[in-house]
């Protein structure tokens, strides 16, 4: 493997609280040294004006394999990941069949390695077939390499099953990632509010999310399992998590780019690219999510990259599937939502995309410490570009951000010391 010397960039490594203009040497797939006078390397990369960061990590993607390979595969999803600057992605188990046993976990791991672009880490289902009734073989899946457990797409509705899941996962010090939606209140097509009332669409009230978070926090109070709230979307949820953290409860949370940038007003016109679950909420909720990011209530950023066929997204709003893709524009969208308005600085943003998610999945990646696996992303913070869906590596095109003028782009993605992707027209 050729050695790499990345010169003159600004190295951002939140895990070491490091922000310094210096050089980075990669040898044998690992970070060899940071500093000046690092000697020679097989390839020298000029990173003047760039940020050199740990490889970006997204703990919430859907790669649809097995079962819906026409929407996305581990291969196409990995290509999308590295094109978006992500070196590690964690795929959700709501496939067909679901990832609810160690054979399926093994399949995703092997397929990820065979493709050989990003690190693709599987997340196992909490319950068999994600039905919320019986626990899946959680221990075996964790042992085989699952990095977390989730029934994403639905929450574990049954309180007794949920309590057992928390107890059981705690035994392995695993992390339970919950899609928080009380099903008897959920099931609508968009946020329940003035817009849904005027469009005549069934609504999903914020309480559907908050009720499950409240219940889970209560159940987990005496158990203390590592509990992670997926795609936070409401002001009430942010407040619940904020208070739980104050009470020293074992909870973490993520937020998706669309919940930082868009509101339910976008659903006017019935464009199904604005239909996702949890739904786009109000401007007040967006503001609260941003506040949650700023004060650390929300730990990390995750795209909830959810590919769907055009044919399915063309169905009537109420029938179309939920979700949008996000890997290839996520970084620029976070910059638009958080950095451009001055809410956070680059070090904090990169922390939420590297060290923090790595901590949640207990990975030793997400840092540029000497000796660490050389997952590195080089970012041009000033590059202006227009989101062009036709150039996405993903198999799907369900994304409302097409045509958006954005700033900041990954220019090179290095995984395990290997350049897996670089921007063609640098």
């Amino acid at each position, binding site marked *: 493997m050729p050695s790499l010397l990345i010169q003159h960039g600004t190295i951002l490594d939140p895990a070491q609280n490091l922000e310094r203009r210096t050089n980075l040497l990669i040898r044998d797939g690992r970070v060899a040294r940071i500093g000046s006078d690092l000697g020679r390397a097989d390839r020298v990369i000029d990173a003047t004006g760039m940020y050199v960061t740990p490889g970006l990590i997204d703990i919430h993607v859907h790669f649809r394999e097995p079962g819906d390979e026409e929407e996305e595969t581990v291969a196409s999803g990995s290509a999308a990941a590295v094109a978006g600057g992500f070196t590690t992605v964690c795929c959700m188990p709501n496939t067909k069949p679901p990832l609810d046993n160690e054979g399926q976990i093994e399949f995703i791991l092997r397929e990820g390695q065979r493709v050989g672009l990003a690190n693709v880490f599987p997340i196992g289902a909490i319950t068999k077939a994600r039905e919320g009734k019986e626990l899946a073989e959680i221990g075996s899946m964790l042992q085989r390499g699952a990095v977390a457990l989730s029934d994403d797409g639905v929450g574990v509705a049954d309180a007794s099953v949920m309590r057992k899941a928390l107890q059981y996962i705690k035994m392995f010090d695993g992390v339970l990632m919950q899609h928080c939606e009380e099903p008897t209140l959920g099931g609508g097509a968009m946020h329940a509010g003035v817009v849904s009332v005027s469009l*005549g669409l069934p609504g999903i009230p914020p309480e559907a999310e908050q009720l499950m978070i409240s219940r889970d926090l209560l159940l987990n109070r005496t158990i203390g399992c590592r509990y992670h709230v997926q795609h936070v979307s409401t002001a009430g949820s942010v407040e619940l998590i904020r208070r739980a953290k104050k009470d020293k409860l074992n909870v973490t949370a993520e937020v998706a780019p669309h919940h930082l940038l868009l509101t339910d007003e976008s659903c006017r016109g019935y464009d199904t690219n604005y239909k996702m679950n949890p739904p786009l909420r109000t401007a007040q909720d967006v503001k609260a999510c941003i506040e949650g990011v700023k004060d650390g209530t929300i730990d990390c950023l995750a795209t909830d990259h959810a590919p769907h066929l055009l044919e399915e997204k063309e169905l009537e709003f109420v029938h179309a599937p939920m979700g949008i893709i996000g890997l290839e524009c996520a970084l620029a969208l976070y910059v638009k939502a958080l950095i451009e308005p001055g809410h956070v600085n680059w070090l904090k943003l990169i922390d939420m995309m590297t060290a923090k998610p790595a901590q949640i999945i207990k990975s030793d990646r997400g840092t540029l410490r000497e000796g660490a696996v050389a997952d590195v992303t080089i970012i041009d913070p000033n590059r202006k570009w227009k989101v062009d869906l036709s150039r996405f590596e993903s198999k799907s095109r369900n994304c409302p951000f097409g045509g958006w003028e954005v700033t900041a782009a990954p220019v090179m993605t290095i995984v395990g010391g290997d350049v897996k992707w670089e921007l063609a027209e640098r």
Partner: protein
Amino acid sequence: MSEAPTTSPTETQPLWKRKHLLSIEELSAQEIHFVLETAKSFKEVSTRSVKKVPALRGRVVVNAFFEDSTRTRTSFSLAASRLSADVIDFSEKGSSISKGETLIDTAWNIEAMGVDIIVIRHAAAGSAEVLSRTVKCSIVNAGDGAHEHPTQGLLDIYTMQEKFGRIKGLRVAIVGDIVNSRVARSNLWALTKMGAEVILVGPPTLVPRSFEKLGAQVVNDFDSVIGSVDVINMLRIQFERIKSSQFPTVREFTRFFGLTGDRFTRCRDNVFVMHPGPMNRGLEISSHIADGPHSGILTQVTNGLAVRMAVLYLVNQAQQENKVSI
């Protein structure tokens, strides 16, 4: 053959430019007023011995109904034939929930047969609007889910205007299952734009407070407003709502929100009672009220024809003008 109505194309040009009618929400008060005026001249056509004008001769109107409807479809069919259009009825129950032919495919297929106007009724909110973005012909919304039923809204205010000589300042109560009602929404928009006061009446499970932000007053106690309104528009009870616990029983619903004989005695002397049909007699409305002198229910049906003729006429004309300008 009779002459076309008195409204001349030169008059319509500046006021009506829409080739589709998708909702009342998007219309201005002037546009609504203009449709009502046009409908007035079409109502006169129905009084002639030969009830036909050549306004849409050679044009093809398809009634694409993906949901059961007898009244609205018949009304649109008759309206189109009175305008001398060729009318085709297309009914298909159910919707394309899974993969396979989508609604858009179906519409493209219909359009490929050389159709000028598609009148669409569909169970999914937004269907008409989404179609209007993908086809070249005109789309007239005949009801899309719980969103809107614009011709019903127009015919309702037409009927009120005819009765009172004005809309501005009227106090109108719309009673019943508001949240699931496209009729309520279209009425709300039409009435508020024309300066009427709208009071939505029903239990909180059927009338969310959010409607206040759309300009309505939300009231849970029917009796508290019944003596002060000019118009009572009763909506149909939908029995399937009982299953979702939006109200407990029909009996209890009738007790609190039905237009019963007892309640009716507390109404204003000149109160006007409306219902979009089909009625559940004895449930949301007593028969003697529905059939009595205060009822405008059959007038609504008659006016519906004139309003739909006006709408078909106007969207067709706008489409023709667009073609010329392109």
